[in-house]
């Protein structure tokens, strides 16, 4: 029984350590990907002021695809309610692109960037978050 408890304790400890590492890895990767995709769209927008261009459309699709893929992974690790804003902003982004509304599109893009940066700060391990 004593050996069993010791083995279980080691396993639990290993589980906790691996969960912490996986969380850090998945969250930072997912958010940095969203950030990079948004920056890429911003760059494309600066180069070519046309919202309805094929390149921007593909970039927005990429942003959405990556986010959906990463969000499903993150749902195992973080509260779903805490990360849903990025998904909402990406959906709005697609609508404003269709409507060719540059101002709103830029506002949504900034929101995606803001949330990506904010979540990284909010979900990462830091003294602020611990206290």
């Amino acid at each position, binding site marked *: 029984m004593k050996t069993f*408890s010791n083995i*279980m*304790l080691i396993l*639990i*400890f290993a*589980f*906790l350590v691996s*969960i912490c590492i996986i969380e850090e890895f998945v969250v930072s990767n997912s958010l940095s990907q969203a950030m990079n995709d948004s920056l890429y769209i911003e760059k494309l927008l600066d180069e070519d002021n046309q919202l309805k261009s094929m390149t921007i459309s593909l970039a927005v699709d990429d942003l959405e695809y990556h986010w959906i893929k990463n969000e499903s992974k993150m*749902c*195992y*690790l*973080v*509260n*779903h*309610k805490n990360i849903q804003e990025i998904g909402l902003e990406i959906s709005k982004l697609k609508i404003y692109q269709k409507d060719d509304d540059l101002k709103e599109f830029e506002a949504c893009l900034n929101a995606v960037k803001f949330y990506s940066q904010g979540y990284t700060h909010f979900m990462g391990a830091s003294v602020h978050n611990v206290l």
Partner: protein
Amino acid sequence: MLTIVLRSIIIYLIVLFVFRIMGKRQLGQMQPFELVLTLIIADLATIPMAEVSVPVLHGIVPLFTLVILHFILTFFCKLSLKMSALISGKPVIVINPDGIDYKAMKKLNLTIDDIFEAMRGLGYFSLDQVEYAIMETNGKISILPKAESMPVTNDSMKIKVEPSALPITIISEGKIIKENLQLANFEEKNLFKFLTKNLNKTKLKDVLIMTVDFNGQVFLQTKKGKRQTFENARLK
């Protein structure tokens, strides 16, 4: 709803596992840090159960962290007496031969009623009967009665008695406990012979309880019958 059902099952199994691994102490025997852990665990378990947006891991990770913390604290308690006193406290004498220790009573935040309640619970209704009362670290009060109030034992009367024999349950609610049968070194065929001889037409499933002790005394009761005792039953 299915999500909540499945989450509840997962959390229940994990909490059960956590309590099993933490040991078999009952609520009343808990040290202060164990009680704190139990209360937190109970609260933690309900969050991912009811809130679907919260991942189950948010319940599991703190539970497991508390298990690790519990073992670390227990380890330190075993390692040093000072640490043990710091975490679990020390037993305190609240009644000594001079009477109630008022200072100790105030320090422990006890009232006279609490002491008398504990005394009455142990069968002592007067302070005259108590030599010492000690407040244990788990919150219970232990009492050492005065010599004249101590219950009479065979030892104090210098009476020689046979050693106590631990009864082993052989049949419980119609089911033979084979592990115990082996422990008592009994053969199953002899058990059936004994049952056929003593139970007339009663079937095995109608036996409520059958215990045997190492002196060979058998206690047998059927679900509808009265209890029977057999001395020196031959089941070997």
